[in-house]
């Protein structure tokens, strides 16, 4: 039986988008993310909410192996978004990662092109812990001075890989970090120190 999507498609999608917009515009802040979703496991409500709010037939979506292993997840996303699923992370507009500890390297995703850096992948990670303060030190656009962000589990190669990603600006992958009820953004413009 297919699980339902947003109860109120217009306003739920708007709420999720504004949380994501605030998160990306203010790296280091953790935004509340109300979802009211109960997607098939192991898809988390936060990953599902971002997918339902932002993806459609124009956006190829890549699923990590934990999500791709469950047919219910693909069926749920296909039905509610119409987005084509792709097996190639370098072609993905959005990449959903359930197991952040086994996330592929950032270089596996699309960095955009010099003329069109907006064609880069948006990486959406499900984490266990996401807290303002401690952990990574962030500087860059959207941040007043510096901000600290703690996350776990840390994807392989991070935070060094984020430094390489920043070095390629204006190319690079933008990341959305989610944990139950919350979202934070790590756009490619953010400089990260461990």
């Amino acid at each position, binding site marked *: 039986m297919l699980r339902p999507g947003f109860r*109120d*498609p*217009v*306003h739920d*999608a*708007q*709420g999720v*988008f*504004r949380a*994501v*917009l*605030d998160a*990306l*515009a*203010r790296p280091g802040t953790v935004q509340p993310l109300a979802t009211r979703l109960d997607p098939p496991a192991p898809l988390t409500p936060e990953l599902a909410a971002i997918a339902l*709010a*932002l*993806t*459609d037939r*124009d*956006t190829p979506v890549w699923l990590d192996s934990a999500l791709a292993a469950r047919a219910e997840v693909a069926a749920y996303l296909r039905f509610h978004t119409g987005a084509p699923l792709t097996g190639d992370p370098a072609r993905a*507009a959005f990449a959903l990662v359930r197991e952040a500890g086994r996330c592929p390297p950032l270089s596996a995703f699309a960095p955009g092109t*010099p*003329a*069109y*850096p*907006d064609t*880069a992948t*948006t990486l959406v990670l499900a984490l266990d812990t996401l807290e303002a303060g401690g952990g990574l030190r962030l500087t*860059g*656009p*959207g*941040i*007043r001075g510096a901000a600290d962000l703690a996350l776990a589990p840390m994807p392989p190669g991070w935070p060094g890989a984020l430094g390489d990603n920043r070095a390629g*600006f*204006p190319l690079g992958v*933008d990341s959305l970090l989610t944990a139950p009820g919350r979202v934070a953004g790590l*756009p*490619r*413009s953010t400089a990260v120190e461990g």
Partner: protein
Amino acid sequence: MSEMRGPESPYNFAYLDEGTKRMIRRALLKAVAVPGYQVPFASREMPMPYGWGTGGVQVTAAILGRSDVLKVIDQGADDTTNAVSIRRFFAKTAGVATTTRTADATVIQTRHRIPETALTEAQTLVYQVPIPEPLRFLEPRETETRQLHALGEYGLMHVKLYEDISRHGHIATTYAYPVEVAGRYVMDPSPTPKFDNPKMDDCPALQLFGAGRERRIYAVPPYTRVRSLDFEDHPFRVQRFDCPCGLCGAEGVYLDEMLLDDTGRRMFICSDTDHCEERRAAGHVGTEGA
């Protein structure tokens, strides 16, 4: 189902269909991630002509939620045709609260001024942009300007400013004065008077730019360096006004010239009508104030 605004509202919330909003929202997220870079988007026909703020309207429609409070200004004024029309458009199609008070607004759509009242982290400023490409009048081909942005090659813009100096003795560009965002992209701040350029720098509010006819969206995140281009020996300067506002006596604000009669009598008053009204309500009176 989303609830209707009134028993038989024929509009989706904020006019645009959900697919269009998603497309604009994705463009906005990439615009925020690459500050100052112009993201192409599939601009829609709106029930108003190009040149009347269709880009700003589409950005506002894509971000607006039920709890937002919208303010719309046209050259600083809340009460001119463009501002009144757009405010009524969203009151009708989204049912959101509207205001003329800068401090009460969560979303402010503007053509093209930045309010005198300092913006806060809780606010988003949406600019209506006619020509988003700062290099367009120097290089008409989009393929070439896109390449120049990709290479970060902005020498052409400095030549243009230098030609101002050689012709006029100073940089004569007074509006749409080019800025460099976060040390990378050169951006057209829309035809804001250059007086407002310093307010874009390190601003607590999120700044979003929509160009409907030209189909571009770009952004400046909060607390981002926005530097007006200049030369060491000709540093960037804003306009200065000789007299305070005739109505409220405000100094250090942007003033509009008003002709009073056919003998050439004139006065200068605040361009930001809300700022002027609040000052007068607080008891400030200018030389011509009643």
